[in-house]
């Protein structure tokens, strides 16, 4: 199943882009209100403002685009995190970025009555930056500096701290629970296109850094000592990687809430496809991450029709068996 040749990888990348576009078309057409292709095309060519067209332009299209952006961002953040921590189970949820951003947003909602999604974005970005920095500093303390084990422990501890503080806030004020719950489960429904526009600059910078780092990450993956011996400024690679993770995961969580498992699952699918070369892992994570999230979001509309399930629940449903399979394989190998 693994693709070895250069041409094969390019071809597969192009195919994955086509599949991604197909998924987006599916996301625009499918749902509680059945939309025909004609309606969808007319919504753009001859907009009249009727309900069926508005569903397409105001609801479905933003949702599809946001799904692609968030899916790609979470997958790339996960792939970077797995390389930087040398831990195949690492993902943004796992080093506390999601939990930290969630806490900041919930705190903002409940203590300062912040309700606009725009405000969530800023709070979420600050939250994920603060959390990453805390984890990074905690992980760098003591002998030997930053190590995968220490950053893993620091991340797990920080994630638990923030998660329990979020729980604590919710216990204090149960009336706010309803308001927060849907966001906390992770969803890309009901987000306006303007919100995506707000995060596009951050996502673009995050993606560009990740693409640019591909080769350096290949070197760093051989271990800190080997990379230093080869003349790499490892602190710079790690710092840039962290900036990219904060931008990508921070924007994603602010817009969609903590959507789990995309960050850990997609990089594994990608590595199964193209191997460990990060010059390929990053671009494939963008496309496959988009595909998986958009598909999960389509599925989320149908499992409990006419009610919708938050997409975060869907990704967990798909993700947990996958996670177990990876864990088992890892154990079998050791």
């Amino acid at each position: 199943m693994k693709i070895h040749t250069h041409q094969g990888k390019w071809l597969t990348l192009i195919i994955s882009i086509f599949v991604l576009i197909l998924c987006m078309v599916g996301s625009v057409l499918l749902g509680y209100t059945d939309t025909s292709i004609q309606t969808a095309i007319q919504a753009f060519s001859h907009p009249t403002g009727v309900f069926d067209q508005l569903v397409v332009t105001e609801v479905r299209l933003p949702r599809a685009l946001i799904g692609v952006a968030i899916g790609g961002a979470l997958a790339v953040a996960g792939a970077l995190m797995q390389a930087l921590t040398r831990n195949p189970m690492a993902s943004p949820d796992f080093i506390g970025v999601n939990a930290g951003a969630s806490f900041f947003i919930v705190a903002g909602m409940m203590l300062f009555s912040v309700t606009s999604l725009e405000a969530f974005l800023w709070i979420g970005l600050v939250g994920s930056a603060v959390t990453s920095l805390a984890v990074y500093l905690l992980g760098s303390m003591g002998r030997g500096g930053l190590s995968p084990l220490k950053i893993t422990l620091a991340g797990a501890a920080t994630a638990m701290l923030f998660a329990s503080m979020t729980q604590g806030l919710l216990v204090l004020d149960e009336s706010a629970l309803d308001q927060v719950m849907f966001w906390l489960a992770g969803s890309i429904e009901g987000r306006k296109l303007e919100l995506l526009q707000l995060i596009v600059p951050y996502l673009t910078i995050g993606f560009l850094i990740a693409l640019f780092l591909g080769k350096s990450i290949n070197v760093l993956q051989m271990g800190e000592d080997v990379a230093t011996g080869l003349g790499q400024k490892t602190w710079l690679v790690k710092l840039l990687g962290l900036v990219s993770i904060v931008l990508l995961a921070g924007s994603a969580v602010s817009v969609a809430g903590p959507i789990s498992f995309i960050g850990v699952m997609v990089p594994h699918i990608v590595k199964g496809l193209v191997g460990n070369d990060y010059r390929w892992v990053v671009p494939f994570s963008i496309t496959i991450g988009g595909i998986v999230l958009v598909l999960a979001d389509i599925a989320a509309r149908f499992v409990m029709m006419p009610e919708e399930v938050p997409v975060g629940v869907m990704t967990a449903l798909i993700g947990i068996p996958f996670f177990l399979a990876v864990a088992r394989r890892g154990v079998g190998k050791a």
Partner: protein
Amino acid sequence: MIALETSQLKLAYGERVIIDGLDVEIPKGKITVLIGCNGCGKSTLLRSMARLLKPKTGTILLEGQMISKMSTKEIAKQLAILPQGPVAPEGLTVLQLVKQGRFPYQSMLRQWSTEDEELVNKALEATGLDELRDQDVDSLSGGQRQRAWIAMTLAQNPDILLLDEPTTYLDLTHQVDILDLLFTLNRQENRTILMVLHDLNLACRYADHLIAVKSGEIYAQGSPEDIMKPSLVQDVFQMDCEIISDPIFGTPLLIPHGKGRNIVRKEG
């Protein structure tokens, strides 16, 4: 001629000082082996000379230049380090691993060149891995894997090669095989080699210059024939031994006393 030189070197992990005020010279074009018991500071010293560990105070000179003033890429072009027990990422092929050795020569502007290609091929040939180039590093035997890592450092084309226990976890055949390879690189390509070895007999056989380290200080240094005496082994390793001449090369050969067969079977 001096390849590497430290002066008043102080090394510590956090508050724990390992080496304090050490002066040592590593001769150019020779094989130097660091020996000493576990935790004596020999690996720490090697790591600092490869700029993997920053000294608290003191200086390290690489061919007369202070390494703290050199860019890390410049150092990588002159000096390669093979750390202890390196682990290749899953699915990396031998060729991909060896190619990474060209990293210090690449930049945004300068991509893969024919010179890079040649040096990678040369490194694969020198280590006898030409036929295995497309195999996963994971799938190789311990000895082949270590060869692959040495090939990566060779692709760096360094004058000086530092290795931290390159024969650990290998069976005797492959230990000799790796050391023969390093000896060839020294004698035929004139590369300076500095390594940590645990097997004293092999150290005596392959080293031009031995440095015995005890509690962060140099206990003795010189050719194996000159310094390898029962008194040194007693002081540095706390071990009683006889030393005879290696019947093949005439280098010192240690025979530990221990208790061995003097231990009698318990009756009943």
